[in-house]
């Protein structure tokens, strides 16, 4: 026994203690409980992973649901894929908890924040440890709940609660697909256990597997913010920045990629679904990257960047390079968490300002933040030898062997990625300071996690995750191809160079270009009006239909009508029955006599009939 249950339970205990008693604790105690529980969880996960050999650990705790032949247990398993996820979630999670102590120091609801964060860790760890689809779904819904709670953390802000609702509702669409997929799995496999379903997948008809894979993909698109369900993620930036880093960049949004990778035995037998995964990933990567090019809110840039990078991961798993997809998931957790935490540090320094046009020249004022973000920028741009270089290139090489045009789109996206990230860095840290506050460097509890993540972003490529996962996933032919690697590196460097020219060397160029291509600029700046299209095509009809049909028609008309109708008829009947009450005792007595006579006649008739 490895006591896997300890890994999620520790943060859960932290959640209970902080959530119930946190109001009375001092901030020091709250932070100690929150960080301590996650750090212990990390330590235990590390111990488990170090003990892990080729055979996965599987621990069955109790039968959760028994219905006919269907047994669903509360089972945890750790194999190599879970091991990677465990370390990323608990490791990056611990760092972000530490960072939050500094970032949230002056905010109200301090205990609430850490209680939610711990609850999130519990659900995320349940998600990755689950040994069957239903338990995975519990974690999946749980992280969605925590995401909702934390996006709407500042619940007095209208936009924050709206963003929380949007995230929750859009995710419901995905969960709908996931639920249907689970039902299909139960129907065709009679079980939801990974250990039962995956070996049996080989003998099932391709049509069934394709349907299941497509439905799972719908779920993954919702959770991992892929086109067309990506719209909630940019809005989710209303939450506190550590939340954006932990939930909406490093861990929760990668759950979809994890789930697709976990279900690879189904996907490899459903090539059409795999192809669609790759298309969606590639399209989302390129599409979101173009939006990221022109945003002015520093968190929005990184949000679209996250959508785009998640697209890369989908491209990876969709082209069969599962280990490359997971590899990018890990490195992305490092550098995107770092970008967000760095952005948080910048926002903290300039007293809540998020518009990059109000920043500039911060390089000398907050040097630690600058250098750490710079490291993350190099990593996401795929500059060798940073972690992003290894993972992104393994995806791009895999996509070249799948279809060369995918590689070229990926390379262009990589160039755009480098451009928008360095555009953000140049706008924030170079030039003259355009704001009105006096920026100050963040406290040490924030800079130390930044430094740790910077180190991981730079050196993360040396955790050789594809080799570690090599035995787990089906092998893919990936011959070393120096030309392809060189092309993608050059694309990244070109993006950085272009950003330097446009935002440092000749700042007027960007403005003149946006004027010159005014219509195109406005289209992209407004995110292709996707939110507006959804609003017109989905939200308005649903709200209007609910109002006209469900509210005015069914609720007011049918249900209220029935209840009020019964009431009104009773009143009418009472209206003429009340006339009997005349006040004359002799009239009552006559009624009694009359009734008795009728009763006697009736009884004697019945008696006669017998």
């Amino acid at each position, binding site marked *: 026994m490895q006591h896997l249950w300890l890994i999620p339970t520790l943060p859960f205990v932290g959640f209970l203690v902080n959530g119930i008693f946190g109001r009375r604790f001092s901030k020091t105690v709250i932070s100690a409980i929150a960080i301590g529980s996650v750090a212990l969880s990390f330590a235990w996960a590390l111990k488990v992973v170090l003990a892990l050999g080729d055979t996965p650990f599987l621990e069955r705790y109790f039968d959760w649901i028994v219905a006919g032949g269907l047994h669903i247990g509360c089972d945890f398993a750790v194999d190599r894929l879970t091991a990677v996820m465990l370390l990323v979630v608990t490791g990056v999670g611990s760092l972000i908890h530490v960072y939050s102590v500094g970032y949230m120091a002056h905010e109200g609801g301090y205990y609430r924040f850490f209680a939610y964060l711990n609850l999130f860790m519990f659900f995320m760890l349940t998600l990755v440890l689950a040994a069957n689809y239903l338990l995975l779904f519990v974690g999946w819904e749980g992280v969605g709940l925590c995401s909702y709670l934390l996006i709407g953390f500042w619940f007095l802000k209208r936009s924050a609660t709206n963003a929380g609702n949007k995230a929750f509702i859009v995710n419901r669409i995905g969960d709908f697909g996931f639920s249907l997929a689970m039902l299909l799995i139960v129907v065709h496999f009679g079980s939801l256990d990974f250990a039962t379903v995956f070996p049996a997948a080989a003998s099932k008809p391709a049509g069934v597997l394709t349907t299941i894979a497509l439905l799972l993909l719908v779920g993954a698109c919702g959770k991992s913010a892929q086109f067309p369900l990506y719209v909630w993620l940019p809005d989710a930036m209303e939450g506190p920045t550590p939340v954006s880093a932990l939930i909406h960049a490093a861990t929760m949004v990668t759950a979809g990629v994890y789930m697709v990778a976990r279900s690879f035995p189904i996907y490899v037998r459903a090539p059409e679904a795999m192809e669609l995964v790759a298309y969606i990933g590639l399209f989302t990567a390129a599409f979101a990257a173009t939006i990221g090019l022109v945003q002015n809110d520093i968190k929005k840039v990184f949000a679209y960047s996250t959508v785009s990078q998640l697209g890369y991961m989908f491209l990876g798993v969709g082209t069969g390079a599962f280990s490359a997809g997971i590899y990018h998931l890990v490195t992305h957790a490092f550098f995107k968490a770092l970008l967000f935490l760095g952005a948080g540090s910048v926002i903290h320094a300039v007293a809540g300002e998020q518009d990059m046009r109000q920043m500039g020249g911060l390089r000398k004022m907050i040097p630690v933040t600058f250098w750490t973000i710079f490291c993350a920028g190099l990593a996401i741009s795929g500059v060798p030898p940073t972690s992003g270089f290894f993972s992104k290139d393994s995806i791009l090489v895999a996509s070249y062997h799948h279809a060369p045009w995918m590689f070229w789109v990926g390379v262009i996206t990589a160039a755009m990625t480098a451009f928008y990230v360095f555009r953000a860095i140049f706008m924030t840290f170079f030039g003259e300071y355009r704001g009105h506050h006096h920026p100050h460097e963040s406290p040490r509890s924030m800079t130390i996690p930044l430094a740790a993540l910077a180190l991981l972003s730079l050196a993360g490529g040396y955790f050789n995750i594809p080799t570690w996962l090599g035995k787990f996933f089906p092998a893919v032919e990936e011959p070393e191809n120096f030309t392809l690697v060189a092309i993608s590196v050059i694309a990244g460097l070109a993006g950085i160079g272009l950003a330097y020219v446009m935002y440092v060397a000749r700042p007027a160029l960007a403005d003149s270009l946006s004027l010159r291509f005014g219509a195109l600029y406005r289209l992209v700046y407004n995110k292709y009006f996707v939110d507006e299209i959804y609003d017109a095509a989905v939200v308005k009809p649903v709200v209007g239909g609910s109002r006209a049909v469900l509210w005015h028609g069914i609720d007011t008309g049918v249900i209220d009508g029935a209840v009020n109708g019964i009431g009104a008829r009773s009143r009418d009947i009472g209206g003429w029955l009340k006339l009997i009450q*005349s006040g*004359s005792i002799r009239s009552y*007595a*006559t009624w009694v*006599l009359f009734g008795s006579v009728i009763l006697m006649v009736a009884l004697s008739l019945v008696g006669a009939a017998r």
Partner: protein
Amino acid sequence: MSGVPLSWYLILSAVLFSLGIAGFLFRKNIITIFMSIELMLNAVNLSFIAFSYELKQVNGHIFAFFVMVVAAAEAAVGLAIILTVFKNRSTLNVDEVNSMKY
């Protein structure tokens, strides 16, 4: 056992009961109505006793005692009500005591 047959008792009971009903329906004075009720109760008592005697069972006797107890209680409460009505309205005409109506 020779003597008066059961039917005679029952006929007497029915006659008394009908007189009670008639009195209840047609008299205006509340005290008279009250007396008519007593008459009906006692008509019923008579038939109970007659059946009890005829069938050699004690149930009818017990019922009759119950009815007498209830009638006594009713007389106490009823007369008190009648007194109060007269005190408030200075009349015992039942047709004038008709404020309890819609």
